[in-house]
């Protein structure tokens, strides 16, 4: 029997543990942290203690080594309760820990991974710039070698986990030269927070992920040792693409978990709220909404778990991770829209967790490649004529 939809005992145990943690430690503070736009160092420490950071990292570097399936289930469970904490986790893992673990030298791994996996420090991935969003290869930030040091100039925007009290290092994608074909040569360089010439400013007034840390970064003749290069010079673009493949699984998990959370809130409310002398969920128009929500969530889950299975079994999964990210975030979009609708006016009030879901959902259509970009990735992989970008 080759096909098996059972999650093994270990994965079930992980789900239960993370669910208990999310419900007991995150749920009681989520609304307040969101309202105050406050990043929680304490919850990040707790996620580290519980082994949620470094899920795909081997134990020798302090990881918990449970693979993508376990990682995605953990992210899903946190997103079911709160998008901001899920963002800290997903970015910390997929954008911070992954590139160092995958491309870093033995020394870089030993220097950074134990603290990152323990949740004592955070690493960030500085790709997006004010003028280079979806076209992430068009970075303007430069890094020039001057003797034994890289000299970095430029800026980054919207960088998750980059300016908190425990942000320790940013993986900066910068132009390090010109390729033979005339295009920009990109490389990734580790720049520790606090390096002279590197400043990180927290961005405020976000609609989404308000308790997640987002920073705007400036580099002015910032110097770091030559050894801070991640992997080899000129590999930055490929490192970025590979990093985003995994990152998309975690964003997809946030979509799936968020949709599940919003659905559960809606189902509960549909039982409790009565109008015209009946539970509102008993009106067929609402019952069918719930049926659609449930069905769509199940479809999204199957696709995401398949993508995780491919990743864990070391098979190509670029197309599947793009499809999963697209489907999970768009499922969340439809589900949370129904969920707020079922809540009526109360769904628009901050005391109701569904309100936070409604706002947080939108980021998932945009971050780590917009839905349009996901469709470009998929279209390219299925062999459409021409370049779907243009």
């Amino acid at each position, binding site marked *: 029997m080759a096909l098996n939809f059972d999650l093994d*005992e*270990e994965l079930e*145990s992980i789900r239960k543990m993370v669910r208990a943690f999310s419900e007991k430690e995150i749920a009681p503070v989520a609304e307040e942290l969101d309202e105050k736009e406050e990043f929680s160092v304490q919850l990040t420490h707790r996620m580290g203690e519980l082994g949620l950071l470094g899920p795909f990292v081997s134990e020798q570097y302090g990881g918990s080594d*449970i693979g993508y399936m376990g990682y995605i289930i953990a992210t899903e469970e946190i997103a079911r309760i709160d998008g901001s904490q899920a963002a800290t986790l997903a970015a910390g893992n997929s954008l911070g820990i992954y590139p160092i673990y995958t491309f870093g030298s033995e020394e870089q791994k030993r220097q950074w991974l134990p603290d990152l996996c323990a949740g004592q420090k955070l690493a960030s991935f500085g790709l997006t710039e004010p003028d280079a969003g979806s076209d992430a290869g068009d970075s303007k930030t430069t890094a020039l070698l001057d003797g034994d040091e890289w000299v970095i100039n430029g800026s980054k925007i919207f960088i998750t986990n980059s300016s908190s009290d425990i942000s320790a290092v940013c993986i900066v994608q910068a132009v390090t030269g010109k390729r033979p074909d005339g295009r920009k040569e990109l490389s990734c360089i580790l720049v520790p927070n606090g390096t002279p010439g590197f400043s990180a400013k927290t961005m405020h007034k976000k609609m989404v992920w308000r308790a997640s840390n987002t920073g705007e970064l400036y580099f002015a003749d910032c110097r770091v040792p030559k050894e801070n290069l991640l992997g080899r010079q000129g590999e930055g673009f490929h490192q970025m693409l590979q990093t985003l493949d995994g990152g998309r699984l975690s964003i997809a998990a946030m979509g799936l978990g968020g949709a599940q959370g919003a659905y559960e809130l809606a189902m509960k409310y549909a039982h409790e709220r009565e109008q015209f002398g009946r539970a509102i969920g008993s009106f067929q128009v609402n019952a069918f909404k719930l049926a659609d929500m449930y069905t769509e969530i199940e479809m999204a889950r199957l696709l995401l778990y398949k993508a995780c299975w491919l990743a864990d079994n070391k098979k190509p999964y670029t197309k599947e991770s793009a499809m999963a990210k697209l489907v999970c975030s768009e499922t969340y979009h439809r589900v949370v829209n129904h969920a707020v609708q079922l809540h009526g006016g109360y769904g628009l009030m901050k005391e109701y967790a569904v309100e936070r879901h409604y706002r947080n959902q939108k980021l998932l259509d945009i971050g780590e490649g917009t839905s349009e970009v996901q469709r470009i990735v998929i279209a390219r992989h299925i062999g459409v004529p021409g370049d779907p970008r243009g």
Partner: protein
Amino acid sequence: MDIIVCVKRVPETAEADIVIDSTGKGIDKAGLVFDINEWDNYAVEEAVLLKEKYGGSVTVISMGPEESNETLRRALAMGGDEAIRLTDSAFAGSDGHAIATVLSQAIKPLPYDLILTGVQAEDDGYGQVGPTLAKMLGINHATVVNGIERIEGNTARVHRELEGGLEEILDLELPAVLTIQSGINEPRYVSIMGIRKVAKKEIKVLGLTDLGIKPDEAGENGSKTVIERVFLPPVGEGAEMLEGTVENIAERVVSILKEKGGVA
């Protein structure tokens, strides 16, 4: 201090829609999420805390099918040392008495100073297993324990929760069975590292003959109770809201109670 904790895997029913199954004697468990009985979770935590304080070992025992391994592993990950699962087709349909028979046979050959169980199981809610087990083993017991103050030599000083907010403190000679009340501690979450560490750990499995139990001592045959029918209580007519002055309301309450036979 050698401690044995008896745990049960139960369906979570607090927020689920309960449907009576086709036999009419149980609920339909398909689709329900199962986890460790909440009270047992506190019992495991308490055992691990005692071990951390006084040394010794914690053995967790569960009577149940293979799925109960998950519950046992969870307890191992929290700090248990050994796990034993008791399973046999002849155990099906056991009530509190029959379960206590099976547990007591498994426990007899083991070294122990304390046996902890939850006050009751979330699914059946009988609260019988702990005291019955103590009786069968011929040892002391205390129920609804919400604090273990200290253990000195052969004596444990424990706090029991009584009705009406009263608390009883009593000294108990060991070995003894304590049924643990929820809220006695703050059960720890098991980290992923903890879950992984015990993932491959062997769970000892014992059946009817291993335990020296006769077929008529366990399962339905060994039970003292027979379930005739399970049903949902009928929904009431709805509430009548009384309005007016305090005196008016009090008068109405008394007359309604008289009318319905509530007061003579």
